[in-house]
């Protein structure tokens, strides 16, 4: 009797916590919405955008991030079917791809810098590229922490419930930052 109530409570506690991640997704979207609105109003009033051809490496990093999302999806599916080893492997793939994404973003910034499109710029639209991609990278770091917590849970052999909970919040967050980057990248491509 006691144990059933406890179990009930655990799953009861997970639902609101998962919901918290969704709410965070909403508020983070709005923060980026603030920046892209700034960008649109700036462009409308000054009659110019960043006016650059974005570095090619951003296209590749977008691809890498997409693949990482797929591998995270596979990890979640592996966990559901009960094969922890497979989940672990896909989590590691996601983690490494996440790091690769970060490295490529740095390369992107370097090549922007080399073409003279620096952060401190009289064209605020160019500075904005650094701001949004920089803050997005901070989200990636947070996402990597989530992936790590799933990984640690996997090595510690936590109960299926806890493992699925960790995997779930990792998935929500990681897919969000994936979609977020695609939005930002397409936005910057369209509004040059």
């Amino acid at each position, binding site marked *: 009797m006691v144990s059933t*109530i406890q179990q009930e409570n655990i799953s009861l506690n997970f639902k609101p916590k998962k919901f918290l991640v969704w709410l965070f997704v909403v508020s983070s979207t*709005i923060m980026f919405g603030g920046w892209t609105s700034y960008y649109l109003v700036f462009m409308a009033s000054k009659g110019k955008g960043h006016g650059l051809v974005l570095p090619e490496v951003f296209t590749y990093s977008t691809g890498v991030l997409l693949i990482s999302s797929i591998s995270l999806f596979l990890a979640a599916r592996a966990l559901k079917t009960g094969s922890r080893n497979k989940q672990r492997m896909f989590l590691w793939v996601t983690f490494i791809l996440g790091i690769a994404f970060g490295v490529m973003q740095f390369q992107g910034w370097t090549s922007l810098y080399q073409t003279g499109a620096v952060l401190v710029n009289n064209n605020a639209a160019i500075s904005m590229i650094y701001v949004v991609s920089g803050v997005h990278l901070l989200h990636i770091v947070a996402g990597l922490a989530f992936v790590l917590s799933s990984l640690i849970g996997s090595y510690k052999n936590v109960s299926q419930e806890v493992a699925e909970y960790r995997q779930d919040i990792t998935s929500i967050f990681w897919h969000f930052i994936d979609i977020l980057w695609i939005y930002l990248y397409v936005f910057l491509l369209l509004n040059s």
Partner: protein
Amino acid sequence: MSTISLHDTHHDDHGHGHHHETFLTKYVFSQDHKMIAKQFLITGIIMAVIAMLLSILFRIQLAWPDKTFPLLETFLGKWAEGGRIKPDFFLALVTIHGTIMVFFVLTAGLSGTFSNLLIPLQIGARDMASPFMNMLSYWFFLVACIIMMSSFFVQTGPASGGWTIYPPLSAVPKAMPGSGLGMTLWLVSMVIFVASSLIGSLNYVSTILNMRTKGMDLWKMPLTIWALFLTAILGILSFPVLVSGVVLLIFDRSFGTSFYLSDIVFGTEILPNEGGSPILWQHLFWFLGHPEVYIVIMPALGISSEIISVNSRKPIFGYHAMVYSLIGITVLSFIVWGHHMFVTGMNPLLGGVFMITTLIIAVPSAVKTFNYLATLWRGNIRFTPAMLFAIGLVSFFISGGLTGIFLGNASLDINLHDTYFVVAHFHLVMGSAAIFGMLAGVYHWFPKMFGRMMNPKLAYLHFWLTFICAYLVFFPLHFLGLDGVPRRYYAFTEFEFMNKWLTVNVFVTWSAIIAALAQVAFLFNFFYSIFRGKKATQNPWEANTLEWTTPVEHLHGNWPGEIPAVYRWPYDYSKPGADQDFILQTTPFSETMSSNLPHDFEGNEEAERIQKEWEAANKPVQE
């Protein structure tokens, strides 16, 4: 059977690791929502006292611009050299007064206190969705307070560009003394504050949506919960925009970008920044800033709905209308921010749009006001201190709301913008009203927080002095504004046409001083009653909501046994046919057969049949 279930939950509570409570885990790093509510409240009260003292300081300057007060130099040193407040410090005073009141007192102090206290207690939950994040929210708030106050201890003084920190004063560190380190501290403090507020809001929304007790559907929630819920949603949707604005401001200040800056000249030096626009800051700021004023007032409105209904011994008039108007205010608040910017050279057509949306907000606000009055109408009113403050809120909300219709009008606003008319308007409608809502809440739920009652005589003294003085302070300011006296002016007497307002300013300052002294009655009452107040009974106001079914002595998990289930809405007061003039939400309809009404059963035919059978069997004897 009951002992078994009690044992189970008891065990369960301790399963979360709260078995060995030390002083630190109970009072300092507490994860219990009731303790966190008290922490928010007491921190909020301390910040309110500080902000009030700051306002007295700048009121002294406004009333006696040519007098010297050597005492001021004793306390303030070089900021009041020769006993007169310096211009830079004056600007810092108004800036920090506004910042503290809006963010630290009326956002964190109000929402933080009552969301934490009431959400789990009134919806029937053991605690918040994430007690740990809840604790984090408080500690972020405290750190933000300390950083903000620390700016009084730097040589160049606190931020002084106004609480709206418009660039370039906020973006160019050498613009004025307060733009330096003080401004940096302001920004750091505000980033931490926003984090605290967001963590809190996420928690409140998740708790309300996921952790209601059995039977507590959305339409059975008290209006306090509705108000706190919608406030939290407003916070989640608007604070992130402030973050995006502040991040760009930090880049402008510290890294030399030009998001908000262009064509700035210092003497002979031209700053390199080019191409930005300070108007864009205003857009980002007011997209938060306007919802922010509803974040301030909505919890107060929710609190007074509850208190007015309890103390009128009547159901709240138009419960659904109350909820829909809160939702209406929430939605509309996002499309009115432009009314703060009518004088920025905005396209008149756009100004017209913002004007219309702004004036539409008067509709839900008026619905609420009339519903309060209709609830009071022919009620069996108990003038408890909480009730007086709640009625005071209604009064301020009306008086301040009326001037909102003037200011929302673009053509009038061009004249009234940045005058004392604006100051008078918002101090009544969101300042005094929200403070009165907060005080009403404190008086009403003090027994729930501390298990003791506050002294009613001191409370009445506090109410009447504060109520009268608040009007004496803010009502005359309208006339200054109509005459064109601008706000935030250090030496308005330098302009001949404003000289005649000096006597009015003396009157206003004396009223403010008396109002400040009246708060001593509250502070003494509050802190004395925590330790020495009369012991509270379980349900001192005879209210229906769930929090009054918990024991007076706090315990982790709120209810000793199972969480009670809810059967009815929270406003069954003076129901015809009932034995008492209040029926707890936990009382099933089967126990109140004599007072049930057909619509109580929400179309449940079985229940209606049973009720009809009972009525047939218990027909009253015709005389």
